[in-house]
């Protein structure tokens, strides 16, 4: 009975992938319910509003998927770096730079190129600028020994400063006082989904900021799956993540893998700008990255760094964001920042306290699940 007091038995795979994340999520919402109760509202009612928010009105689903797109990109960015045991918390800055790249491209070329050339360029620029902004911390980690976490934090602030000074200076729309660029010409934008569906003869679809970058996000999910589990580089990334010394001994150029991983991670974060800048706003506005880069960490944690998990976690967070707006509408005493609180709780329970319930659950499952006769049961 007390055999596993020191170290718990291993968790079955299905429990680790499915049950434990669900328990952690549940506890996070339970803690949030306590806060709601303390404020003096009915927790079940508020959380119910939060969850059905995405489905209440036509068009809400579009909003949900629009938020989801941001989380797909930033979640993937964090996950790719995680596979090499690197913690990229610079998604915020990389997304900012991605938007900056798109803005500079549009300013430079205007409406001179046809859409068929311009839109691919927009995609390349968002990824390239994000990648470049992640490459520097990657280089400093690989060759100069500075820690990626600290450097990427610093780079977030530097990116924000660059953004403010450019948007309130050279890039500002002439004759405007708010720090933003002028609207993009029609050749440089990603179409809104409701427009596309309308043209395709689907009738009148409710308007939302959801745009074609959602489908680029889906492609990115597939691409990351292929990269991590089906390519040589992906294998090297995972090898470096498991054990850099062993990877080096096996002939893998570790610094090169670190650089490439960070570049890919940064490119994905930068592509978040496709959704916000090229799709939804169709101009560069200040702070469009809106903490999505940080929430990407929560997405990757819950999604267990796997594209399928990241997609589901992105949907959950997208729905939460949309639900937050419903809460804003329906409750006087609760604001949409309730969602930020929930995100914090989710990161706490699914990330930092991930191991809290693990031993309990493992012991419980070990006790109640039938075991193979030849297994540990026979040994005792």
């Amino acid at each position: 009975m007390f055999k596993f007091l020191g170290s718990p038995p291993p968790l079955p795979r299905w429990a680790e992938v499915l049950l434990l994340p669900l328990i952690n999520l549940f506890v996070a919402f339970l803690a949030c319910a306590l806060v709601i109760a303390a404020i003096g509202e009915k927790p079940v009612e508020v959380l119910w509003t939060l969850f059905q928010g995405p489905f209440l009105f036509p068009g809400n689903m579009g909003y949900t998927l629009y938020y989801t797109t941001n989380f797909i990109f930033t979640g993937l960015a964090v996950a790719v770096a995680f596979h090499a045991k690197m913690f990229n918390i610079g998604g915020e800055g990389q997304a900012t730079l991605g938007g900056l790249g798109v803005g500079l491209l549009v300013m430079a070329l205007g409406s001179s190129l046809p859409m068929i050339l311009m839109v691919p360029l927009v995609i390349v620029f968002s990824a390239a600028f994000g990648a470049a902004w992640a490459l520097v911390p990657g280089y400093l980690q690989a060759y100069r020994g500075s820690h990626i976490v600290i450097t990427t934090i610093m780079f977030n602030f530097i990116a924000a400063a660059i953004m403010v000074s450019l948007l309130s200076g050279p890039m500002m729309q002439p004759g405007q006082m708010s720090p933003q660029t002028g609207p993009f010409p029609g050749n440089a934008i990603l179409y809104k989904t409701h427009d596309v569906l309308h043209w395709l003869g689907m009738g009148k679809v409710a308007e939302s900021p959801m745009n074609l970058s959602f489908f680029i996000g889906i492609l990115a999910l597939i691409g990351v799956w292929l990269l991590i589990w089906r390519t040589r580089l992906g294998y090297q990334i995972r090898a470096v993540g498991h054990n850099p010394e062993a990877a080096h001994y096996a002939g893998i150029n570790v610094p090169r893998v670190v650089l490439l991983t960070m570049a890919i991670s940064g490119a994905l974060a930068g592509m978040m700008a496709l959704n916000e800048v090229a799709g939804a706003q169709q101009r560069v506005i200040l702070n469009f990255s809106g903490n999505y880069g940080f929430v990407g960490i929560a997405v990757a944690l819950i999604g267990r760094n796997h594209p399928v998990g990241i997609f589901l976690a992105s949907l959950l967070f997208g729905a939460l964001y949309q639900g937050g707006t419903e809460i804003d509408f329906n409750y006087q005493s609760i604001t949409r920042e309730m969602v930020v609180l929930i995100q914090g709780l989710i990161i706490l329970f699914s990330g930092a306290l991930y191991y809290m319930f693990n031993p309990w659950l493992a012991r419980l499952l070990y006790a109640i699940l039938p075991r193979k006769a030849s297994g540990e049961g026979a040994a005792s």
Partner: protein
Amino acid sequence: MNDLAFQLLLALDASLRLAAPLMLCAMAGIFSERSGIVDISLEGKLLASAFVAAAVTAATGSVWLGLAAAMLSSMMLSVLHGFATITHRGDQVVSGLAINMLAMGFTIVVGHAVFARGGQTPALTDNQRFSPITLPFADQLTAIPYVGPIYKELISGHSLLVYMALAAVPLTAFVLYRSRFGLRLRAVGEVPEAVDSAGISVFWLRYRALMLGGLLCGIAGAYLSTASGAGFVREMSAGKGYIALAAVIFGNWRPFRALGACLMFGFLEAMTARLEGVDFPVVGVLPTQLMQALPYVLTVLLLAGFIGRPTPPAAIGQPYIK
């Protein structure tokens, strides 16, 4: 004393005001990181305690209760950080991030629910704040050249919390380098196994280090909302916790060097505010927004080994497994 020198004096005075919360948070960061725990949750603790200080002061009318509550709330977040990273060996960066987000969401949600002012707390009156203290003889001594103005403008006329921040630095240094607790604290950040084999609890030491840090962050938070400001506004900490973390690294995890970094960062901030829009001959208007990024740029350069070599505590970031 000519005008330029007097302007410089005023700028230094402003630097000290801006550096005070950084100093407190940096000392908090030194305690935590020297014990082996990465602490990016300085930001969240600063924000939460700024809110609690203003909210409790507004509710009770006593700024001292506000300060006490701020220190308590910040220490509770420290204990949470410890619970996740020391007891449950969770990732220290993830835990810090969670606390920062919790603080951001919690202050706005609770602030909105309690005060219904869009996340702000009611404005505090003068007797509900830590107001400037005029040191003795400040006015009488102004006649003395140099010493007088420096004493009056730079040294005198700050709130109590600024003096507490200034005192925190030598106190931190003393505790760290001259006390038994400090010796063990430094050891636990370098070789926790050695401390453990001497029969001293690694867990309890790290918890105490974190709680001390929480205490200091609490004072810094109270400074933001009840001394330099008159009430809480949302996202009041505005990255100061991260700048303090940069100062810790810049100061190579040593109190007096970190103080130097804090003063430098404070001076940069004071100068950006002063130079905004000023048209200089030859160079023109300085890009002040870019200057705000200087602390971060300098820290990156330092970390990359272009200005000296940082030597972080050896065991930092690794949970201790007994």
